[in-house]
Protein backbone atom coordinates (compact mmCIF):
# COMPACT_ATOMS: atom_id res chain seq x y z
CA UNK A 1 0.00 0.00 0.00
CA UNK A 2 1.28 3.44 -0.98
CA UNK A 3 -0.58 6.39 0.48
CA UNK A 4 0.24 9.97 1.36
CA UNK A 5 -0.42 9.64 5.08
CA UNK A 6 1.38 9.60 8.39
CA UNK A 7 0.21 7.17 11.09
CA UNK A 8 -2.89 5.20 10.16
CA UNK A 9 -4.48 6.14 13.50
CA UNK A 10 -4.11 9.86 12.77
CA UNK A 11 -5.71 9.85 9.33
CA UNK A 12 -9.08 11.29 10.28
CA UNK A 13 -8.00 14.05 12.67
CA UNK A 14 -5.22 15.11 10.29
CA UNK A 15 -7.59 15.12 7.33
CA UNK A 16 -10.15 17.21 9.20
CA UNK A 17 -7.42 19.56 10.32
CA UNK A 18 -6.19 20.03 6.73
CA UNK A 19 -9.74 20.55 5.53
CA UNK A 20 -10.58 23.16 8.14
CA UNK A 21 -7.29 25.03 7.91
CA UNK A 22 -7.55 25.41 4.16
CA UNK A 23 -11.20 26.51 4.39
CA UNK A 24 -11.41 28.52 7.56
CA UNK A 25 -13.86 31.05 6.08
CA UNK A 26 -16.32 28.25 5.62
CA UNK A 27 -15.73 25.67 8.34
CA UNK A 28 -14.48 25.16 11.82
CA UNK A 29 -13.80 22.08 13.90
CA UNK A 30 -16.02 21.36 16.88
CA UNK A 31 -13.50 21.20 19.70
CA UNK A 32 -12.47 17.76 20.84
CA UNK A 33 -14.19 16.05 17.90
CA UNK A 34 -13.62 15.30 14.25
CA UNK A 35 -16.88 17.05 13.40
CA UNK A 36 -17.03 20.32 11.45
CA UNK A 37 -19.60 23.08 11.60
CA UNK A 38 -20.31 26.14 9.46
CA UNK A 39 -18.13 29.10 10.24
CA UNK A 40 -19.57 31.69 7.84
CA UNK A 41 -21.28 34.84 9.06
CA UNK A 42 -24.65 33.91 7.61
CA UNK A 43 -24.77 30.81 9.81
CA UNK A 44 -25.44 32.74 13.00
CA UNK A 45 -27.47 35.46 11.29
CA UNK A 46 -29.98 33.24 9.51
CA UNK A 47 -32.08 30.98 11.75
CA UNK A 48 -33.14 27.62 10.33
CA UNK A 49 -33.48 23.94 11.20
CA UNK A 50 -29.98 22.53 11.65
CA UNK A 51 -28.97 19.82 9.19
CA UNK A 52 -26.40 17.31 10.43
CA UNK A 53 -24.99 14.41 8.51
CA UNK A 54 -21.98 12.19 8.92
CA UNK A 55 -20.62 8.72 8.66
CA UNK A 56 -17.39 6.90 8.16
CA UNK A 57 -14.52 8.78 6.50
CA UNK A 58 -13.17 7.90 3.07
CA UNK A 59 -16.09 9.29 1.07
CA UNK A 60 -14.81 12.84 0.71
CA UNK A 61 -16.07 15.39 -0.19
CA UNK A 62 -19.15 13.78 1.48
CA UNK A 63 -20.10 15.01 4.14
CA UNK A 64 -17.79 17.77 5.37
CA UNK A 65 -17.42 19.12 1.82
CA UNK A 66 -21.15 19.77 1.75
CA UNK A 67 -21.23 21.92 4.87
CA UNK A 68 -22.11 25.51 4.03
CA UNK A 69 -24.92 27.94 3.33
CA UNK A 70 -27.71 26.05 1.55
CA UNK A 71 -26.60 22.55 2.39
CA UNK A 72 -25.40 20.99 5.69
CA UNK A 73 -24.93 22.83 8.98
CA UNK A 74 -22.44 20.31 10.36
CA UNK A 75 -20.86 17.00 9.45
CA UNK A 76 -19.40 14.30 11.68
CA UNK A 77 -16.48 12.21 10.45
CA UNK A 78 -15.93 8.73 11.83
CA UNK A 79 -12.87 6.58 11.33
CA UNK A 80 -12.32 5.29 7.79
CA UNK A 81 -15.46 3.40 6.72
CA UNK A 82 -16.65 3.38 10.34
CA UNK A 83 -19.63 5.24 11.78
CA UNK A 84 -18.75 8.13 14.09
CA UNK A 85 -19.51 7.74 17.77
CA UNK A 86 -22.66 9.08 19.46
CA UNK A 87 -20.83 11.65 21.58
CA UNK A 88 -19.37 13.33 18.47
CA UNK A 89 -22.73 13.35 16.73
CA UNK A 90 -24.31 14.78 19.86
CA UNK A 91 -21.75 17.63 19.90
CA UNK A 92 -22.60 18.46 16.31
CA UNK A 93 -26.31 18.48 17.08
CA UNK A 94 -25.76 20.89 19.96
CA UNK A 95 -23.54 23.11 17.80
CA UNK A 96 -26.22 23.68 15.14
CA UNK A 97 -29.47 23.75 17.08
CA UNK A 98 -30.95 27.24 16.91
CA UNK A 99 -34.17 26.28 18.66
CA UNK A 100 -35.92 25.14 15.49
CA UNK A 101 -34.72 21.57 15.77
CA UNK A 102 -32.15 19.43 14.00
CA UNK A 103 -32.52 16.94 11.16
CA UNK A 104 -30.09 14.02 10.93
CA UNK A 105 -29.36 12.63 7.46
CA UNK A 106 -28.11 9.07 7.94
CA UNK A 107 -26.98 6.51 5.38
CA UNK A 108 -28.59 3.12 5.97
CA UNK A 109 -25.86 1.04 7.62
CA UNK A 110 -26.39 -0.69 10.96
CA UNK A 111 -23.43 1.16 12.47
CA UNK A 112 -24.63 4.57 11.37
CA UNK A 113 -28.21 3.88 12.35
CA UNK A 114 -27.23 2.73 15.85
CA UNK A 115 -24.73 5.51 16.58
CA UNK A 116 -27.03 8.27 15.29
CA UNK A 117 -29.89 6.75 17.29
CA UNK A 118 -27.82 6.85 20.48
CA UNK A 119 -26.92 10.48 19.75
CA UNK A 120 -30.56 11.28 19.12
CA UNK A 121 -31.47 9.82 22.50
CA UNK A 122 -28.79 12.00 24.11
CA UNK A 123 -30.13 15.14 22.36
CA UNK A 124 -33.72 14.32 23.27
CA UNK A 125 -32.63 14.23 26.90
CA UNK A 126 -31.64 17.91 26.32
CA UNK A 127 -35.10 18.63 24.87
CA UNK A 128 -33.72 19.29 21.40
CA UNK A 129 -36.32 18.67 18.69
CA UNK A 130 -34.73 16.05 16.48
CA UNK A 131 -35.64 13.77 13.60
CA UNK A 132 -33.89 11.46 11.16
CA UNK A 133 -34.02 10.86 7.41
CA UNK A 134 -32.44 7.56 6.39
CA UNK A 135 -31.01 7.37 2.87
CA UNK A 136 -31.14 3.97 1.16
CA UNK A 137 -30.77 4.59 -2.56
CA UNK A 138 -28.61 1.61 -3.58
CA UNK A 139 -30.86 -0.66 -5.62
CA UNK A 140 -28.22 -3.35 -6.03
CA UNK A 141 -29.24 -4.66 -2.62
CA UNK A 142 -32.64 -6.21 -2.14
CA UNK A 143 -34.91 -4.46 0.27
CA UNK A 144 -36.45 -7.06 2.48
CA UNK A 145 -37.79 -6.73 5.97
CA UNK A 146 -35.52 -9.60 6.95
CA UNK A 147 -32.32 -7.79 6.04
CA UNK A 148 -30.55 -4.55 6.76
CA UNK A 149 -32.21 -3.14 3.66
CA UNK A 150 -30.68 -1.04 0.93
CA UNK A 151 -27.50 0.97 1.51
CA UNK A 152 -27.11 4.72 1.38
CA UNK A 153 -24.68 5.70 -1.38
CA UNK A 154 -24.18 8.54 -3.89
CA UNK A 155 -27.82 9.66 -3.85
CA UNK A 156 -27.05 11.02 -0.38
CA UNK A 157 -25.43 14.06 -2.01
CA UNK A 158 -28.65 14.91 -3.86
CA UNK A 159 -30.74 14.37 -0.72
CA UNK A 160 -28.44 16.68 1.26
CA UNK A 161 -28.67 19.30 -1.49
CA UNK A 162 -32.45 19.35 -1.65
CA UNK A 163 -32.97 19.22 2.12
CA UNK A 164 -30.29 21.88 2.61
CA UNK A 165 -32.00 24.21 0.15
CA UNK A 166 -35.39 23.65 1.79
CA UNK A 167 -34.00 24.26 5.27
CA UNK A 168 -32.45 27.54 4.12
CA UNK A 169 -35.85 28.57 2.79
CA UNK A 170 -37.28 28.11 6.28
CA UNK A 171 -39.09 24.78 6.10
CA UNK A 172 -39.91 23.24 9.50
CA UNK A 173 -38.41 20.05 10.88
CA UNK A 174 -41.61 18.11 10.14
CA UNK A 175 -41.75 19.42 6.59
CA UNK A 176 -38.10 18.53 6.04
CA UNK A 177 -38.66 14.97 7.26
CA UNK A 178 -41.55 14.58 4.85
CA UNK A 179 -39.56 16.08 2.00
CA UNK A 180 -36.51 13.94 2.80
CA UNK A 181 -38.49 10.70 2.85
CA UNK A 182 -40.10 11.54 -0.44
CA UNK A 183 -36.78 12.44 -2.08
CA UNK A 184 -35.17 9.24 -0.81
CA UNK A 185 -38.07 7.16 -2.14
CA UNK A 186 -37.47 8.62 -5.59
CA UNK A 187 -33.68 8.27 -5.67
CA UNK A 188 -32.02 5.14 -7.07
CA UNK A 189 -28.33 4.39 -7.47
CA UNK A 190 -26.17 1.60 -8.77
CA UNK A 191 -22.39 1.46 -8.87
CA UNK A 192 -19.58 -0.46 -10.53
CA UNK A 193 -15.94 -0.91 -9.56
CA UNK A 194 -12.91 -1.44 -11.79
CA UNK A 195 -10.59 -1.67 -8.80
CA UNK A 196 -11.41 -2.00 -5.09
CA UNK A 197 -10.38 0.56 -2.51
CA UNK A 198 -7.47 0.01 -0.13
CA UNK A 199 -8.48 0.72 3.47
CA UNK A 200 -5.33 2.15 5.10
CA UNK A 201 -5.59 -0.06 8.18
CA UNK A 202 -5.93 -3.15 5.97
CA UNK A 203 -3.20 -2.32 3.48
CA UNK A 204 -4.47 -4.11 0.38
CA UNK A 205 -7.52 -3.80 -1.90
CA UNK A 206 -10.76 -5.12 -0.41
CA UNK A 207 -11.20 -7.56 -3.31
CA UNK A 208 -9.38 -8.51 -6.46
CA UNK A 209 -10.60 -8.05 -10.01
CA UNK A 210 -8.81 -9.32 -13.09
CA UNK A 211 -7.45 -6.95 -15.68
CA UNK A 212 -10.61 -7.12 -17.77
CA UNK A 213 -13.22 -7.48 -15.04
CA UNK A 214 -15.59 -5.10 -13.34
CA UNK A 215 -17.86 -5.67 -10.38
CA UNK A 216 -21.51 -4.59 -10.64
CA UNK A 217 -23.42 -3.40 -7.62
CA UNK A 218 -20.61 -2.47 -5.26
CA UNK A 219 -21.13 -0.41 -2.12
CA UNK A 220 -19.04 2.53 -1.00
CA UNK A 221 -17.14 0.47 1.60
CA UNK A 222 -15.72 -2.19 -0.69
CA UNK A 223 -18.86 -4.26 -0.26
CA UNK A 224 -18.86 -6.66 -3.19
CA UNK A 225 -21.66 -6.48 -5.70
CA UNK A 226 -24.00 -8.90 -7.42
CA UNK A 227 -21.79 -10.00 -10.29
CA UNK A 228 -18.34 -9.84 -11.79
CA UNK A 229 -18.25 -9.43 -15.56
CA UNK A 230 -15.94 -8.51 -18.40
CA UNK A 231 -15.58 -4.78 -18.85
CA UNK A 232 -17.61 -3.31 -21.68
CA UNK A 233 -17.56 -0.03 -23.60
CA UNK A 234 -18.92 2.91 -21.63
CA UNK A 235 -22.10 2.96 -23.68
CA UNK A 236 -22.88 -0.66 -22.80
CA UNK A 237 -22.25 0.09 -19.14
CA UNK A 238 -24.62 3.06 -19.33
CA UNK A 239 -27.23 0.90 -21.04
CA UNK A 240 -26.97 -1.85 -18.47
CA UNK A 241 -27.10 0.41 -15.40
CA UNK A 242 -29.97 2.46 -16.79
CA UNK A 243 -31.99 -0.67 -17.56
CA UNK A 244 -31.58 -1.77 -13.93
CA UNK A 245 -32.45 1.61 -12.44
CA UNK A 246 -35.29 2.64 -14.69
CA UNK A 247 -37.24 -0.53 -13.88
CA UNK A 248 -37.54 0.80 -10.33
CA UNK A 249 -39.65 3.76 -11.45
CA UNK A 250 -43.30 2.98 -12.19
CA UNK A 251 -43.88 6.35 -13.79
CA UNK A 252 -41.30 7.35 -16.35
CA UNK A 253 -42.93 10.65 -17.29
CA UNK A 254 -42.09 13.92 -15.60
CA UNK A 255 -38.70 15.36 -14.76
CA UNK A 256 -35.56 13.54 -13.71
CA UNK A 257 -32.24 14.44 -12.15
CA UNK A 258 -29.05 12.49 -12.79
CA UNK A 259 -25.77 12.18 -10.90
CA UNK A 260 -22.71 10.55 -12.43
CA UNK A 261 -20.42 10.00 -9.48
CA UNK A 262 -16.72 9.09 -9.54
CA UNK A 263 -15.55 6.66 -6.84
CA UNK A 264 -12.27 8.48 -6.15
CA UNK A 265 -9.70 6.88 -8.44
CA UNK A 266 -11.50 7.37 -11.74
CA UNK A 267 -10.61 10.57 -13.60
CA UNK A 268 -13.16 13.16 -14.70
CA UNK A 269 -12.42 12.28 -18.34
CA UNK A 270 -14.05 8.86 -17.94
CA UNK A 271 -16.90 10.31 -15.91
CA UNK A 272 -17.79 12.76 -18.69
CA UNK A 273 -17.60 10.08 -21.38
CA UNK A 274 -19.93 7.93 -19.30
CA UNK A 275 -22.21 10.94 -18.71
CA UNK A 276 -22.45 11.48 -22.44
CA UNK A 277 -23.56 7.86 -22.93
CA UNK A 278 -26.03 8.11 -20.05
CA UNK A 279 -27.70 11.17 -21.55
CA UNK A 280 -27.86 9.47 -24.97
CA UNK A 281 -29.47 6.39 -23.49
CA UNK A 282 -31.99 8.35 -21.41
CA UNK A 283 -32.84 10.49 -24.43
CA UNK A 284 -33.55 7.36 -26.45
CA UNK A 285 -35.96 6.32 -23.70
CA UNK A 286 -37.65 9.74 -23.74
CA UNK A 287 -36.65 10.41 -20.15
CA UNK A 288 -36.61 14.14 -19.48
CA UNK A 289 -33.38 15.01 -17.66
CA UNK A 290 -33.68 18.49 -16.16
CA UNK A 291 -30.64 18.40 -13.90
CA UNK A 292 -27.37 16.57 -14.25
CA UNK A 293 -24.12 16.62 -12.35
CA UNK A 294 -20.78 14.88 -12.79
CA UNK A 295 -17.90 14.52 -10.35
CA UNK A 296 -16.37 12.88 -7.31
CA UNK A 297 -19.08 13.55 -4.72
CA UNK A 298 -19.42 10.31 -2.77
CA UNK A 299 -16.18 8.41 -3.08
CA UNK A 300 -14.71 5.24 -1.69
CA UNK A 301 -11.08 6.14 -1.02
CA UNK A 302 -9.06 5.25 -4.14
CA UNK A 303 -11.65 2.93 -5.63
CA UNK A 304 -11.80 3.07 -9.42
CA UNK A 305 -15.36 3.04 -10.58
CA UNK A 306 -18.46 5.05 -11.06
CA UNK A 307 -22.03 5.17 -9.86
CA UNK A 308 -25.18 6.37 -11.54
CA UNK A 309 -28.01 7.96 -9.59
CA UNK A 310 -31.36 8.76 -11.13
CA UNK A 311 -34.02 10.71 -9.25
CA UNK A 312 -37.61 11.18 -10.28
CA UNK A 313 -37.96 14.83 -9.37
CA UNK A 314 -40.44 17.67 -9.68
CA UNK A 315 -39.97 21.36 -10.53
CA UNK A 316 -39.43 22.25 -6.91
CA UNK A 317 -36.68 19.65 -6.38
CA UNK A 318 -34.99 20.58 -9.67
CA UNK A 319 -34.89 24.22 -8.52
CA UNK A 320 -33.45 23.18 -5.19
CA UNK A 321 -30.76 21.10 -6.90
CA UNK A 322 -29.82 24.10 -9.05
CA UNK A 323 -29.68 26.69 -6.27
CA UNK A 324 -26.20 28.06 -5.69
CA UNK A 325 -24.47 26.98 -2.51
CA UNK A 326 -21.19 27.87 -0.85
CA UNK A 327 -19.45 24.59 -0.08
CA UNK A 328 -16.13 22.96 -0.91
CA UNK A 329 -17.48 19.92 -2.62
CA UNK A 330 -20.85 20.45 -4.33
Amino acid sequence: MKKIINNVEDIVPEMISGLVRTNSDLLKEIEGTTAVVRNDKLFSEHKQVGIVSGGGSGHEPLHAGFVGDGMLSAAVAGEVFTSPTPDQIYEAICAVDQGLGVLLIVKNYSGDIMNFDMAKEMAEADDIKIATVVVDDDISVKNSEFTQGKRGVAGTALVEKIIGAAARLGESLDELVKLGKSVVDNTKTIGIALHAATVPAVGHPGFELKDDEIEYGIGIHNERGYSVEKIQPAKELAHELIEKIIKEFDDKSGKFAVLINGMGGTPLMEQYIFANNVLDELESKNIDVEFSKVGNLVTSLDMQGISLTIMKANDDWIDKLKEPVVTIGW
Partner: protein
Amino acid sequence: MKLELEQSQKWVELFVQKLETNKAYLNELDTAIGDGDHGTNMDRGAKAITESLSKKTPNTVSDLYKAVAFAMIQKVGGASGPLYGTAFLDMSKAVKTENIELSDLIQVGSDGIKRRGESDVKMKTMIDVWQPIADDLKSNKLDKANVDTALNSTKDMVATKGRASYLEEKSKGHLDPGSQSSAYLFESLVDVLGDN
Protein backbone atom coordinates in the same frame (compact mmCIF):
# COMPACT_ATOMS: atom_id res chain seq x y z
CA MET B 1 -22.14 -18.24 40.06
CA LYS B 2 -21.07 -14.64 40.13
CA LEU B 3 -17.98 -12.72 39.06
CA GLU B 4 -16.22 -10.62 41.70
CA LEU B 5 -14.38 -7.40 40.85
CA GLU B 6 -10.97 -9.00 40.58
CA GLN B 7 -12.23 -11.76 38.29
CA SER B 8 -14.10 -9.26 36.18
CA GLN B 9 -10.96 -7.20 35.84
CA LYS B 10 -9.04 -10.27 34.76
CA TRP B 11 -11.82 -11.06 32.27
CA VAL B 12 -11.66 -7.64 30.65
CA GLU B 13 -7.87 -7.74 30.64
CA LEU B 14 -7.77 -11.08 28.82
CA PHE B 15 -10.38 -9.86 26.33
CA VAL B 16 -8.33 -6.73 25.63
CA GLN B 17 -5.23 -8.84 25.06
CA LYS B 18 -6.97 -11.16 22.63
CA LEU B 19 -8.40 -8.25 20.67
CA GLU B 20 -4.97 -6.70 20.30
CA THR B 21 -3.33 -9.96 19.31
CA ASN B 22 -5.99 -10.81 16.77
CA LYS B 23 -6.55 -7.40 15.18
CA ALA B 24 -5.32 -8.54 11.76
CA TYR B 25 -7.36 -11.74 11.85
CA LEU B 26 -10.57 -9.88 12.71
CA ASN B 27 -9.90 -7.44 9.87
CA GLU B 28 -9.40 -10.40 7.57
CA LEU B 29 -12.72 -11.97 8.56
CA ASP B 30 -14.44 -8.60 8.07
CA THR B 31 -12.75 -8.13 4.69
CA ALA B 32 -14.37 -11.32 3.45
CA ILE B 33 -17.96 -10.36 4.22
CA GLY B 34 -17.85 -6.80 5.57
CA ASP B 35 -15.69 -3.72 5.21
CA GLY B 36 -12.46 -4.96 6.72
CA ASP B 37 -12.34 -2.88 9.87
CA HIS B 38 -13.67 -5.01 12.70
CA GLY B 39 -10.16 -5.75 14.01
CA THR B 40 -9.20 -2.09 13.84
CA ASN B 41 -12.42 -1.07 15.53
CA MET B 42 -12.08 -3.57 18.38
CA ASP B 43 -8.39 -2.77 18.80
CA ARG B 44 -9.28 0.90 19.17
CA GLY B 45 -11.87 -0.14 21.77
CA ALA B 46 -9.32 -2.33 23.57
CA LYS B 47 -6.86 0.54 23.83
CA ALA B 48 -9.60 2.88 25.03
CA ILE B 49 -10.58 0.40 27.75
CA THR B 50 -6.98 0.13 28.94
CA GLU B 51 -6.58 3.89 28.95
CA SER B 52 -9.82 4.44 30.83
CA LEU B 53 -8.99 1.79 33.46
CA SER B 54 -5.48 3.15 33.93
CA LYS B 55 -6.86 6.64 34.54
CA LYS B 56 -9.38 5.53 37.12
CA THR B 57 -9.44 2.09 38.70
CA PRO B 58 -13.10 1.11 39.17
CA ASN B 59 -14.23 0.25 42.65
CA THR B 60 -17.19 -1.92 41.70
CA VAL B 61 -18.02 -4.44 39.00
CA SER B 62 -20.70 -2.02 37.86
CA ASP B 63 -18.14 0.76 37.43
CA LEU B 64 -15.85 -1.59 35.56
CA TYR B 65 -18.54 -2.56 33.04
CA LYS B 66 -19.57 1.05 32.71
CA ALA B 67 -15.99 2.04 31.89
CA VAL B 68 -15.88 -0.70 29.25
CA ALA B 69 -19.23 0.45 27.86
CA PHE B 70 -18.18 4.10 27.61
CA ALA B 71 -14.86 3.22 26.00
CA MET B 72 -16.67 1.17 23.34
CA ILE B 73 -19.40 3.76 22.75
CA GLN B 74 -17.06 6.73 22.56
CA LYS B 75 -14.09 5.30 20.72
CA VAL B 76 -15.24 2.47 18.46
CA GLY B 77 -18.03 3.72 16.25
CA GLY B 78 -19.20 1.38 13.49
CA ALA B 79 -21.71 -1.30 14.41
CA SER B 80 -19.65 -3.01 17.08
CA GLY B 81 -19.20 0.13 19.21
CA PRO B 82 -22.84 0.70 20.13
CA LEU B 83 -23.49 -3.06 20.31
CA TYR B 84 -20.73 -3.97 22.79
CA GLY B 85 -21.33 -0.59 24.44
CA THR B 86 -25.02 -1.28 24.98
CA ALA B 87 -24.33 -4.82 26.21
CA PHE B 88 -21.86 -3.64 28.85
CA LEU B 89 -23.94 -0.60 29.80
CA ASP B 90 -26.96 -2.78 30.42
CA MET B 91 -24.76 -5.26 32.32
CA SER B 92 -23.37 -2.40 34.40
CA LYS B 93 -26.89 -1.33 35.37
CA ALA B 94 -27.93 -4.92 36.10
CA VAL B 95 -25.07 -5.68 38.53
CA LYS B 96 -25.68 -2.38 40.32
CA THR B 97 -29.33 -2.92 41.17
CA GLU B 98 -29.68 -6.69 41.43
CA ASN B 99 -27.69 -9.49 42.93
CA ILE B 100 -27.45 -11.14 39.56
CA GLU B 101 -26.23 -14.58 38.44
CA LEU B 102 -23.52 -14.67 35.74
CA SER B 103 -25.82 -16.46 33.29
CA ASP B 104 -28.48 -13.79 33.74
CA LEU B 105 -25.87 -11.09 33.36
CA ILE B 106 -24.83 -12.42 29.95
CA GLN B 107 -28.49 -12.70 29.03
CA VAL B 108 -28.87 -9.01 29.86
CA GLY B 109 -25.95 -8.24 27.55
CA SER B 110 -27.40 -10.37 24.80
CA ASP B 111 -30.77 -8.67 25.14
CA GLY B 112 -29.08 -5.28 24.95
CA ILE B 113 -27.46 -6.21 21.67
CA LYS B 114 -30.77 -7.50 20.31
CA ARG B 115 -32.49 -4.27 21.27
CA ARG B 116 -29.83 -1.96 19.83
CA GLY B 117 -29.33 -4.02 16.68
CA GLU B 118 -32.95 -4.94 16.14
CA SER B 119 -31.63 -8.42 15.67
CA ASP B 120 -31.95 -11.96 16.95
CA VAL B 121 -30.29 -15.36 16.64
CA LYS B 122 -29.66 -16.95 13.23
CA MET B 123 -28.94 -13.62 11.56
CA LYS B 124 -25.19 -14.32 11.51
CA THR B 125 -24.26 -11.68 14.05
CA MET B 126 -22.56 -11.67 17.43
CA ILE B 127 -25.93 -12.64 18.92
CA ASP B 128 -25.20 -16.13 17.62
CA VAL B 129 -22.40 -16.32 20.17
CA TRP B 130 -23.91 -14.30 23.01
CA GLN B 131 -27.22 -16.15 23.17
CA PRO B 132 -25.89 -19.74 23.06
CA ILE B 133 -23.28 -18.81 25.70
CA ALA B 134 -25.98 -17.31 27.93
CA ASP B 135 -27.92 -20.55 27.52
CA ASP B 136 -24.86 -22.69 28.23
CA LEU B 137 -24.19 -20.73 31.40
CA LYS B 138 -27.75 -21.27 32.53
CA SER B 139 -27.22 -25.02 32.23
CA ASN B 140 -23.78 -24.67 33.78
CA LYS B 141 -21.75 -26.06 30.90
CA LEU B 142 -19.60 -23.29 29.52
CA ASP B 143 -16.24 -24.36 28.16
CA LYS B 144 -14.09 -23.49 25.17
CA ALA B 145 -15.68 -26.20 23.06
CA ASN B 146 -19.05 -24.52 23.54
CA VAL B 147 -17.65 -21.18 22.51
CA ASP B 148 -16.18 -22.80 19.42
CA THR B 149 -19.45 -24.47 18.56
CA ALA B 150 -21.34 -21.20 18.81
CA LEU B 151 -18.74 -19.37 16.73
CA ASN B 152 -18.61 -22.05 14.05
CA SER B 153 -22.38 -22.15 13.78
CA THR B 154 -22.17 -18.72 12.14
CA LYS B 155 -20.13 -20.11 9.27
CA ASP B 156 -22.97 -21.64 7.34
CA MET B 157 -25.55 -18.98 8.12
CA VAL B 158 -26.80 -16.48 5.57
CA ALA B 159 -26.49 -13.01 7.07
CA THR B 160 -29.66 -10.98 7.41
CA LYS B 161 -28.29 -8.16 9.59
CA GLY B 162 -25.16 -6.02 9.33
CA ARG B 163 -23.00 -5.46 6.28
CA ALA B 164 -22.69 -9.15 5.47
CA SER B 165 -26.41 -9.22 4.69
CA TYR B 166 -25.70 -7.33 1.43
CA LEU B 167 -23.97 -10.46 0.17
CA GLU B 168 -27.06 -12.57 0.69
CA GLU B 169 -26.25 -16.23 -0.17
CA LYS B 170 -22.59 -15.35 -0.71
CA SER B 171 -22.20 -14.56 2.99
CA LYS B 172 -22.30 -18.32 3.60
CA GLY B 173 -19.02 -20.13 4.26
CA HIS B 174 -17.42 -17.35 6.32
CA LEU B 175 -17.26 -16.82 10.08
CA ASP B 176 -19.00 -13.66 11.31
CA PRO B 177 -16.31 -11.25 12.54
CA GLY B 178 -18.39 -9.91 15.45
CA SER B 179 -19.01 -13.49 16.56
CA GLN B 180 -15.26 -14.10 16.53
CA SER B 181 -14.60 -11.08 18.77
CA SER B 182 -17.43 -12.23 21.04
CA ALA B 183 -15.82 -15.68 21.10
CA TYR B 184 -12.64 -14.00 22.40
CA LEU B 185 -14.76 -12.41 25.12
CA PHE B 186 -16.18 -15.73 26.25
CA GLU B 187 -12.92 -17.66 25.87
CA SER B 188 -11.51 -15.08 28.27
CA LEU B 189 -14.42 -15.74 30.57
CA VAL B 190 -13.72 -19.49 30.50
CA ASP B 191 -10.09 -18.75 31.36
CA VAL B 192 -11.15 -16.66 34.33
CA LEU B 193 -13.64 -19.24 35.53
CA GLY B 194 -11.02 -21.99 35.09
CA ASP B 195 -8.76 -20.04 37.42
CA ASN B 196 -11.26 -20.53 40.20
